[in-house]
């Protein structure tokens, strides 16, 4: 039976993952990165699953020493965290994990990821490159307009801030669908506001 080490301080998460993977493998739990490293001195595992946030330390404290000893193909590591934003995922991938998963863990997806890692370890997902898409916003004839030259999208609406959030959401949708956003793999929108005539608040002040 395959052996998994789960590094996790939350009792609830320990029980959830034990329920998810129980029967599929033999699982040991370490509540801190330090206790995980102590276990790894004496025993071998087929997979390490590591949470990120611990009181006073992080999962990287266990990932880096493991990568100095084993490659991602010899000992796969899955990082899990409630705080898994794209910046953290990039940092963890650079530290050498095979895959990053945001909590809450969906049962089917997580089981299937663990199975894949146990059968044929691979690095899933490359760190997202961060580029900037420049959009232009202007106010004209009582409405705000925002234009993305890369995608040739023009949006309009009564609220400039809301419009930028909508543009960001449209770009997110395109990125998630795998669209080639020009030179862009992952978007970070920067909006330039171009004042072409007085805004409504300025008109009100003048009046």
């Amino acid at each position: 039976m395959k052996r998994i080490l789960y590094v996790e301080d939350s009792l609830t998460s320990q029980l959830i993952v034990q329920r998810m993977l129980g029967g599929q493998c033999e699982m040991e739990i370490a509540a801190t990165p330090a206790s995980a490293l102590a276990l790894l001195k004496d025993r071998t595992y087929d997979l390490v699953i590591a949470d990120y946030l611990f009181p006073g330390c992080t999962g990287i404290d266990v990932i880096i020493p493991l990568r100095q000893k084993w490659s991602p193909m010899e000992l796969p590591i899955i990082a899990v965290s409630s705080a898994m934003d794209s910046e953290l995922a990039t940092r963890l991938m650079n530290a050498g994990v095979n895959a990053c998963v945001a909590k809450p863990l969906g049962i089917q997806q997580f089981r299937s990821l663990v199975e894949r890692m146990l059968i044929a370890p691979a690095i899933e997902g490359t760190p997202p490159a961060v580029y900037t898409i420049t959009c232009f916003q202007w106010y004209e004839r009582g409405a705000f307009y925002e234009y993305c030259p890369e995608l040739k999208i023009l949006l309009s609406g009564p609220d400039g801030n809301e419009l930028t959030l909508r543009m960001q959401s449209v770009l997110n949708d395109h990125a998630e669908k795998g669209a080639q956003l020009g030179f862009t793999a992952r978007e970070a929108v920067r909006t330039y506001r171009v004042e072409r005539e007085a805004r409504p608040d300025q008109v009100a002040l003048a009046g």
Partner: protein
Amino acid sequence: MSGHNSISDAYIQDLITSAVNNVCSTMVRKEATFIRRLEARDFRVSAQEAHFFGCVGFRGQINGLVHLCIPDNFAQHAASVILGMKPDEMMMQGEDMVGDVIGEITNMTVGNFKNALCDMGYSCKLTIPRVVRGINPNMEILQSSRRHIFHFDCHKESLVADIQLVGG
């Protein structure tokens, strides 16, 4: 010229609704529905039933604190579903175990919310969750914060998310 945009009330509502729904549907296997926004003066916890208050903060380019207020009955039910225990088995586990589950639910919900803020360009980090149980416990209030309170229904069980934001 700036990469940051102020976060509108409607957007905060979208983010927290998505976070609550994601956690409820994945963990408790029940959809959560947004009911209404509450003013701070209208937000009163029933004195008839104890509640669990899970609290997680975030610090960075935007600071904030989110409390999830979950009535005892719903907390017990959620904990039994999440841990795969029968309700009477769950009762035997005691308050600390339910509190641990509520802490994790809060951590995941606030994590989802925070991750969306980070992806908007507001880099920030989560704090460690805290949980208290009581009839009307004192909630930490951040100075100069904007407060947004949202009431959700999860299959006739009530859940309130109280968000305080500083900056943004």
